[in-house]
């Protein structure tokens, strides 16, 4: 509960700073394009149930599905790469070749290969998260001190015990952190991906509102993306707090 209040007060402070700056800008000449925060929030409440909900839901699914898929596939690949020289011999060069490519540059290729449907959009977000998670998990596994494996071995443990007591808890914070970092990039890549061949998603809604010169709608869409990101970040913070209580700051004793 204390964690919740602590984060809520941080959120409130951050929001007030943003809304204050936003209000100042909207009172200048830029106000034609950027309506005041109060006006945008009212518009958001008005159109959310009838219009924005379906666009938000579409964007949410296009983010959560690849996040889950990438995590499920990248985590074991990262563990194999971190533990086995042979695995690393294959996985690392592949990652180094593909990870630096700006994923947005792959969008036309994905659209050509997989069509204008959901698959290409899911795969583009997947590609953002996959390598980030894989490399973070690999590095985390490689940084495990040998004494922890020795301890488990001396206690009579096999590989599954080493995974349960050492690898999983050691890699979990880095894993969550990598998903957190890639979630923001995913949303920006998704925005572009939603401007092609779809009539659903926050990317489509924002660009469509821009073309219609409906600036309050456009700002409502941007606010929705921000809230979607916020929900991801706080969910990941809550997951870290719950699953990694030993990390300083997560332990209630240290708060």
């Amino acid at each position, binding site marked *: 509960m204390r964690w919740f209040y602590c984060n809520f007060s941080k959120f409130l402070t951050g929001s007030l700073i943003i809304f204050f700056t936003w209000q100042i800008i909207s009172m200048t000449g830029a106000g034609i394009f950027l309506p005041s925060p109060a006006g945008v929030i009212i518009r958001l409440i008005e159109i959310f149930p009838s219009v924005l909900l379906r666009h938000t839901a579409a964007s949410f699914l296009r983010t959560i599905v690849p996040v889950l898929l990438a995590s499920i596939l990248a985590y074991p690949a990262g563990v194999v790469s971190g533990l086995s020289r042979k695995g690393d011999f294959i996985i690392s060069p592949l990652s180094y070749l593909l990870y630096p490519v700006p994923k947005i540059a792959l969008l036309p290729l994905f659209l050509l290969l997989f069509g204008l449907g959901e698959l290409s959009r899911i795969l583009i977000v997947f590609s953002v998260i996959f390598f980030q998670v894989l490399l973070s998990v690999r590095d985390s596994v490689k940084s495990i*001190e040998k*004494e*922890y494996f*020795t*301890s*488990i*071995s*001396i*206690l*009579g*443990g*096999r590989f599954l*015990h080493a995974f349960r*007591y*050492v690898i999983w*808890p*050691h890699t979990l914070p880095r894993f969550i952190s990598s998903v957190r970092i890639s979630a923001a990039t995913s949303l920006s890549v998704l925005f572009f991906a939603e401007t092609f061949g779809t009539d659903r998603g926050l990317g489509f809604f924002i660009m469509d509102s821009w073309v219609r010169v409906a600036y309050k709608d456009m700002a409502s869409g941007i606010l929705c993306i921000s809230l979607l990101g916020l929900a991801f970040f706080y969910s990941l913070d809550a997951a870290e707090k719950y699953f*990694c*209580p*030993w990390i*300083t700051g997560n*332990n209630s*004793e*240290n708060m």
Partner: protein
Amino acid sequence: MLEAANLSASYPGISLFTGLSLSLTRGETAAVLGPNGCGKSTLLSLLTAQKKPLAGSVRLSGRIIEKGDKRVGCILQTYGIFPWLTVEKNIRIPLEISGLEEKEIRKKVSGIMRDFSINSLKERYPSSLSGGEKQKTALARTMASDPELLLMDEPFSAIDALTREELQDFLKDLLKGKKITTLIVTHSIDEAVYLADTIYIMGKKPSEGFVSAYRSGQDFTDRKDPAFFSHINNIRLIMESTR
């Protein structure tokens, strides 16, 4: 009874000892003293079967020690307790690995925590423990599986002097009560004299192996006993003569 016979070990490009032998009777406490790099930690790796010897064998009660042998408990120099688990969960590990039932595990863990007077640390994470508390947790975890042989690598090296003496007394009482065969690798001559029945002294070069086996023949309870200092000096002389 622990019997290590004609052990030889090497690392790539480096030959360590050859033909090293060691014999400990049931309940005996021995210490291995020696300078840095003489192969003390390698000896522990051989005794726990974490490293395979080039030649020779290690037997406990007549049976060869296998990797992960539940009859052997070992406390590493850095304690080896997991920072992501509470004290209680660390102690549960060997029991969970053994496949004991939950009811049995709880009973055993609470008994051990009571015996070691660490009940108040139950929910704490290792990062919030002192060196002495970490060492007690590591010892409790090792003793949870009731080992026949206890191996300790520099057990009290990172602990302040007064806590170290308290822990040495605690360990001495524990070993006496349980009659566990124990081998302690240490740099500290006074620790070796205070705790061990037999002190094996290793030469400066790993290839020299044990250069002497010293028996004080006394069970010290008072560190101010003049005989205690006399044994320390004797060992110091032996060690200096091997340099």
